[in-house]
């Protein structure tokens, strides 16, 4: 990233001003055209369909270009319950997204496990991936989603493009289980990919 590292090393008045200007312009672009990847697993996903449909129309906030490829999206929207069975999939999707990337936990299930406190549901996705905005509600109303989106936009506004994205990411929940490994590809599948 040429321009970013250029400014990171410069000091002085002009550099600071220019730095701010570029920062603002880039962030303005980022915040006003978020491309969401709806990781919709449950009831909240149905409500997210209401968000994009014409009555509520998320296009007003510049986030209507729903992408189903993590490579093309910069906003991961986890809408619905994440079970232990689904956890490796979610982690994999998140890792596949390119920086800069943000995460909204849509609904209490994603944020904390919700009222499914049991053997099969992950008690909050922030045990697996960092979350920028937590959106409570079961399901949240579409208006509440817009509130979360605006909160995320505000947050993006304050980010420094000269700092590495990874340093600005929120932390995982402290009690998260660190013994848990990043999902690996099954050896049989890997052999197939390589054509062995």
């Amino acid at each position, binding site marked *: 990233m040429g321009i970013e590292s250029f400014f990171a090393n410069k000091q002085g008045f002009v550099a600071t001003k220019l730095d701010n200007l570029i920062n603002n312009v880039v962030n303005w672009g980022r915040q006003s055209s978020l491309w969401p990847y*709806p*990781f*919709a*697993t*449950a*009831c909240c*996903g*149905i*409500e997210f*369909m*209401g968000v994009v*449909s*014409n*009555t509520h129309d998320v296009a007003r906030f510049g986030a209507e270009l729903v992408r*189903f490829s993590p490579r093309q999206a910069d906003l991961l929207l986890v809408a*619905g*319950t994440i*079970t*232990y*069975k*689904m*956890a*490796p*999939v*979610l982690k994999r*999707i998140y890792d596949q997204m390119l920086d800069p990337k943000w995460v909204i936990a849509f609904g209490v299930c994603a944020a904390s496990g919700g*009222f*499914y*406190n*049991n*053997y*099969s*549901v*992950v*008690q909050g996705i922030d045990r697996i991936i960092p979350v920028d905005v937590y959106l409570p509600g*079961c*399901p949240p*109303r579409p208006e509440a989603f817009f509130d979360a989106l605006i909160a995320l936009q505000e947050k993006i506004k304050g980010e420094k493009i000269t700092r590495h994205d990874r340093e600005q990411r929120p932390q995982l929940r402290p009690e998260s*289980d660190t013994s*848990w*490994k*990043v*999902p*690996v*590809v*099954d050896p*049989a*599948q890997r052999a*197939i990919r390589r054509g062995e």
Partner: protein
Amino acid sequence: MVATFDVKERLRQRFAADVLHADRAGGMESITVKKDRIVEILGFLRSEPDLAFDFLSDLGGADGMRLDWPQWRDRFQVVYHLRSMKHGRRLRIKASVPESDCRMPSVTGLWKSANWMEREVFDLFGVHFDGHPNLKRILCHHKFVGHALRKDYDIHQGQWLDETESMMDEIGEYGENPDDGGFSELVPVNIGPAHPATHGTLRLFAKLDGETVVRVSPEIGYLHRGFEKHSESGSWTMVIPYTDRLNYCSAMLNNVAWCHGVEKMLGIEVPERTQYIRVIVSELSRIIDHAVCVAAMLVDLGALTNFWYLFNLRERIYSILEELCGARLTSTYVRIGGLAYDLNEGFIDQVRAILRDIPKNVGDVIALIKKNRIFLDRTVGVGAVSKELALSYSWTGPCLRASGVAFDLRKSDPYLGYENFDFEIPTYEDGDVYSRAMIRFDEIVQSMRIIEQALDRLPSGPIFSEDKRVHLPDKDKVYGSIEGLMNHFVLVYDGIKVPKGEGYHPIEAANGELGFYTISDGSGRPYRVRCRPPCFTIYSGYSEIAAGSMIADAVPILSSFNIIAGELDR
């Protein structure tokens, strides 16, 4: 033959040594048998013309570890709910399985739907089924240790998973196609669970020959949220919010199904007004469910415009329901013995207004697709399911009716006074994707008819049963009399006390027969709750139906089933 119908006696004559116990519970004969000859017994019940229990409604398990019933001899029971399509009767057969010898014969040879249901019992209770073609876990992940629904499994004990299952065992080897002498190559392709065509929670693993699906195997359980275990840990009323989240496109119907089942166990009749209101909200939910199903299916075919049209309709019905109960999706409106609130002011006018608009809304969509060449090419004749296959997979609801069986619980086993309404059961003959889409439009029309009649005849009166076991006394009685106070205290503190016994009282939900098999030990908490989800059995037929089709057709076949993951995986 009806006069001499006595299934108990018939079974005793034939399998004297195997019948352990017989009683009548929850509106049907309930017979406990030994496990070893279960295939013969069920085969006999199925083939005798005067019994003809040819339809496997449900197959579930129960753990009697904390149950002190004398007739419950061994730890586990595998429960079969049968229905005779010919005679319209139901029957419950329970096979007793001891913990020391936790295995029994599989009935997959009799019904294809038993395949997944037995896998579920194996997964959650650990009962092995001998002769099952592919007995492995279905809802919990493949590295899960223990059996979640056993009473000694701690509800909070989660188990992390670090890699998804490869599924190679179900699909077979990668390589040359043996059928054409190695001319073409077979390629395994993983679709989902995070894929738009699989709606976020379903995973398909397919083996392709070019664009043709040679074999496909679904993996489910990505949304297994422990509904049954949760229900068994709270009071009867506390289950209602969980039912909202089963089929979250039509939460009201699930509420009605649960409360209706519990009321039957209590022997309570709800007031007439409540029945009518339940019918109205049920049918409104059915309309939403069908609209969402068709909208999602058309999106999968690339027709996005219809989605906007149908979602307008959905949004309007949601605003009506929201005014009624305060929530758009997850209503929690129905209560055991009544309803949470009476109708709000203006409800009737709003519903009447929307009934006037639905024909236009739906008509627009039909006009867009009815003569649309692309739509017809991609749906007519695709994924055709015969009557016999549909019944063997225990299909119910619109999918079964699209295959030509006019089976609808609202007509065949009426509840909530559906017998007093004038409506038809639409059926189609071909059982293809086209029929499964169009039948939903026809059902929307019938639902509108029902709502209209219900609005016209809506009686006034109370909305809650007067029965002390479910009805909180009025406030002046609570503050003014000792009985009222005690009554209130006990009901709030202990919850509703459902008498000992078991029950299964299904209703017709948007996807088909939805019922809860419940066991009460009289303690104020459900001992066992088993949900019979309509789309579980429907989806179990997918691999057979989609095999041989083009990969592009496999997607509309899937979406025409209207698989709702919350209900599928619970």
